[in-house]
Structure formats: C-alpha cells, structure tokens
C-alpha cells in the first residue's frame, strides 16, 4: 500500500446525504474481478449527462484532479463492496471528508491508502465552502489537521493504528503473521478445549463428501 502523509489539493464536493455504495459503484460492475481501472465506473449513473448539461463534478476541471472529496452525512452506507473504495482511489481520491460514514466503507478506506475524516456539521460546512471556492486544502496526517486558506486549522480524529498503517503503507497481514502467530496458536489450543464445537475440522466436513463437482471452462 502506498504510504499517505500529506495531501495538498483542491477538493471536489457532493451536496448530498446518504450516498450509498450502490451509487458509488453500481452492482453490475462487481462482475469485474480486477482491482485496477474501476474508476471509470465510479458514480456511473451520476456521470451520465446529456449534451449541454453540466458534467458530474469529478469530470469537470478543476475538480477532475482533486485528491479530496467533501461529502455529506452517511457517505458509503450499504454494501461491503470494497470496489467502492478501489474505484474512488483509482480516480485519484486519497481523502474523503464527511459528517458520518457507513462503517464497512470507512474500514475499507484504510486498507487502500484512503483517509476518511469525520467532521461535525458546522466544521464540515466550512471545508465545503473552501472546496466551493476552489481553494487548496492541506490534509496532514501526522498532525491530524486540515488547513484551509486563511490559516484556519481543523483537527480530526483517527485511530492510532490505522494512522500508522496509512503513514507507513503497512501490510497488515504481514505484521499479524510476524507478531501474533504464537498468540493465534495459543488461542486455538485453548478454544479446542473450551469450545471444541466451534472448531470445524475435516471430520465434520465428511457430511459433504457427496458434493458434486462442477465443470466450468473459464
């Protein structure tokens, strides 16, 4: 994962609450199995405009190069599809600022070098105004601040371990395997004694021995 430290960019904005993950990434594109290149399908329906209509904000200069997106309340609610984050990241977005987020979407952001920031409604409104004025906004992760033109500094919360993962571009799985292998093994041994019924083993799966085999040509 690419480390994230500081973002300096104008911000695109969406004046809409409850932008769910179906709006961000419609389900029919979930059939695509590559992580890359999904940006073309982000906000697919919103980006469909007739000739002469104003293009969707992420398609019109200067916002088409924005690395920050300012949204409303309940951004990314609904489906767990990580494609929603992959698609936004593919468009070059690295920070999403909203009043609240769907929980799974929020967690998915951190796995992909995208920083989601929660702000209260009033503070968010000031960031939104700055976005509307097409001003450059500085999002600094080490100091957990957003700096607006005119030197207003806004601080925000982020979990310590998630911050570290973003800053270092950590491979979380490698860290767990390196540091916690013994703990996991010890837990499993304890659970085998304490609650053996939770540990499905090959013997249990014998009831599935009659499963038919499907033949597909990929």
């Amino acid at each position, binding site marked *: 994962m690419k480390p994230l430290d500081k973002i300096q960019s104008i911000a695109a904005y969406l004046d809409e609450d*409850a932008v769910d993950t179906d709006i961000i990434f419609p*389900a029919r594109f979930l059939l695509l199995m590559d992580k890359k290149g999904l940006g073309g399908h982000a906000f697919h*329906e919103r980006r469909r405009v007739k000739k002469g209509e104003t293009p969707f904000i992420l398609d019109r200069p200067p916002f088409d190069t924005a690395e920050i997106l300012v949204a409303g309340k309940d951004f990314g609610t609904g489906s767990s599809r990580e494609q929603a984050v992959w698609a936004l990241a593919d468009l070059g977005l690295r920070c999403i600022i909203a009043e609240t987020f769907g929980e799974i979407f929020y967690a998915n952001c951190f796995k992909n070098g995208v920083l989601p920031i929660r702000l209260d409604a009033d503070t968010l409104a000031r960031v939104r105004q700055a976005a509307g004025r097409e001003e450059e906004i500085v999002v600094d992760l080490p100091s957990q601040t957003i700096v607006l033109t005119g030197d207003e500094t806004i601080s925000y919360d982020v979990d310590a371990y998630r911050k570290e993962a973003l800053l270092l571009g950590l491979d979380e799985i490698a860290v767990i395997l390196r540091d916690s292998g013994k703990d996991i093994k010890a837990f499993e041994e304890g659970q085998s004694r304490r609650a053996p*019924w939770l540990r499905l083993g090959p013997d249990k799966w014998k*009831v599935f021995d009659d499963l038919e085999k499907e033949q*597909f040509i*990929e």
Partner: protein
Amino acid sequence: MHAHDRPRTLYQKVWDDHVVSTYQDGTQLIYVDRHLVQEVSSPQAFVGLDAAGRDLHRPEAHMAVADHAVPTTERTATLREGLAASQVARLSTNAARHHIPYVPMTDRRHGIVHVIGPELGFTLPGAVLVCGDSHTCTHGAFGAVAFGIGASECECVFATQVLRQSRQKSMRIRLEGVCPEGVQVKDVILAVIARIGVGGGVGHAMEFAGSAVRAMTMEQRMTLCNMAVEAGSRIGLVAPDETTFAYLKGRPLAPTDTEWDAAVANWRELASDSDAVFDQEFEIDVSSLSPFITWGTTPEESAPISGRVPDPAAIDDPRVRRRVERSLRYMALEPNTPLSGIAIDRVFIGSCTNGRIEDLRSAAAVVAGRKVHPRVQAMVVPGSASVRLQAEAEGLDRIFSEAGFDWRHSGCSMCVGMNDDRLLEGERCASTSNRNFEGRQGRGGRTHLMSPAMAAAAAVSGHLADVRDLWPEGTK
C-alpha cells in the same frame, strides 16, 4: 485479565471469548471461527493471497458458495460464458486450490450464504462469523457475532484467521407486544430503521430483545437481524434460547452427542446479564404497528401503507427537504399521493431478508385463489435449494405458478441485480429485499421495500396495497 465479574451484554461475552491479544491502543485481535466466501468479494482476496505467496491458515473454517451472480432460471449448463460465468468459475477454482469446501450451484445445499449458513449448522451461537457481504449480520439471530467485511479483510482472515478490531458499543432494541394481523417482522424492522435512521446504529452492536423477539421463530429473527446494517449496525444479535437450539439440532455441521450437550450448556450462558449496561436503548411496541412500505431511496424513507408520499414543502429542515425532493424525483412520485394505489410493474419475493420458507408460506397464503395482475411481472426466488424443495413439498410452487408468478431457483437475484434478474429503467417494483437504493435492482429501477405478504398483495392488486384488506383467515 477480563473483568468478567462485571455484567456484560451478549455481544461483549462472545467478543471476550474471541480475544487473541490486545494492543496498547486498546484494539484487539479477534479470532474468526467461520468465514463464508462468495464470488463477488473473494477474487481480489485470493489474488492478494497468491501475490504474497500465502496459504490459508485453516481451510476448513471457510465455506464457499456462489450466490450473487448465479442465474435463477435454470440450474444446468447455462453459466458457460460471460462475466458471471467467469466469476463463479473463479470461486470454484480458488476453493479447490485452497481446499475450501465449495457448494456448487447444482447441489441441493446451494443457496444464498446467509440462508444456507444457518440451514447447514455452519452458523452457531457464540461464534464469530464473517463474510465479504454486509448482510452477514443475519447470522446474529443465533447469538453469533457476525459482521460484513471488505475484500482486504477477507484476505486477512484467509491468511491469519484473525482481524484487528475495536470493540463496538452496545445498543438494545426492545420489541414488546404482539404484531397485529397482517404485520410481519419486515414491518417491525422497517419501523426500527425509520425510528433511528440509516446511521443510527453506527459503532454499535444492536441486540434485539423483548417479548416479541422471544416469541419469534428463527426465520423471523433472521429477517430482523438481516436489516440491522440498514440502520447502520454491522452487527445484529438475538440471545440464543430453546427456539435456537431446536432449529440447530441435527443440522449437518452442528455438534452432536456429548459435544451438543456441552455446547447448549455454554450457549445458555450467552444472554446479556440482567444488569448489563447498554450505551443506547430503544423500545417499540409492535402491537401499535401497521404494514410499512418505503417510498424513497433509503430504507429509512418509509411510512405505513395507509400513509401518503411526503410533501417536501411541508419539511422545514432544508437539508431533509432536499433529500426528500431528490428521492421523490428518482422514484417519480408526487407529494401527498396515497401510498396504497401506486401502480407497480414488477414483484420480487426472495433475498436473504425474506427468501425463507415462512416468507414463502405467508406470501402464498395471500396469493392462493388469486391471480397476478395482468400488468405485473412477478417472481419468487427461494433463498436456497432446500427452501425451494420444502416449498414444493408443501405445494406452494403450484399456488405461485397458478397465480402467474415465475418460480425460480435460489440466489440473490433481483435484490442485487447482478444476474439477468433486473428492473428495466423506470420500472417500479414491490420487493421483499433490503435496499431501495437508486439503481439497486437495475439502472433506473424504482424499489419499494415491504414484507412478503405485502408484496403478494401488490402482485395481485397491480398496485401497492394494504394486505390487511386481503388477509386470509388463520394465517400468521
């Protein structure tokens, strides 16, 4: 180590039982007992695993089944090409390579992950269960801590069997009383979502309790927990009791003999302590409810069927007004129109919310002796092959077919619109699914969420209708 003498909630007990280690910042590594794997959220996780040259930590802790993209029209030889075929084939190949038990589309045990997990006894009380699907909260009906995760977290579970998480706060929704005739659990959960909003449960594990919950069957509890995520909670829970044990006993993957007895003794201890403290509590008297229906494009935008489409002009808060205007524009609805009477084009009965045998029984009871309105195209998609077979044994398929419904094979189907079952642009659908988001059932499609009985009433009426006017004597 754990402050176990302090009163704890059901969620906290299951959580504490799965802590592998605690970090300095308070986050914890949580052990995952079971992982359901489907075709949409797993391909990229397997790619990541392969790229890093990692193996599965414990293959037998996973079960794979394709449900989102599978066709529901036929079960043989139809999935040979195209994107959906490749995705299903990829799951089958990945499962075989990594020795994960895989349930093929043609098997009698096939179905939606959240329907077959419980049916097969893969889902157990006191377990931590995850899946790359937000409706994993369904399994909380058994007193499991079950939640949806993204593909990156699926990869982490494959490789390590743990996830680094923060403990959620606890919320309790007390449901008291008895539902009036014609009111189903779907109406109850829509009422809960309307009350607390689509973000109301964020950060909380949502436990459902109270006399109404105790009286519910497992199918009903699953409908309830299934939509916790539509109220913002990744986790919904119901304490396990005799109803739970009776459902699970004898299921293929459930414990047996002395292990069963030990398990049940353990499960009896899981209920929230009587003096446990919840961060938030709500109570709803279900006897005051009537059938609910959504009119907008979020699950909280709903009203009783006797109500009307809201009038934005009467809403003071400009933000809410904008939101409602937008929803009505998408839904092509005029303010103040009575909900009952809005003409529909399609009916979908199915999904992990309402695709179980009791759902089909209640819909069939309304449909029996009636015909689907000539303007309407209606379909029933059982949640699993086993539900389909059971319904056929009870003759429900004939009731639906004779009325003019399509009788389909199991899968997610038109709840997510990833196979050929989709709304066309501008079509209006009475649906028993869980999300009325823009384009959810097909680009430009318009979804009204409701109970199976209400969807059946809409099918035979040709418009949104109050099922209580059609309610057959003696049905539940």
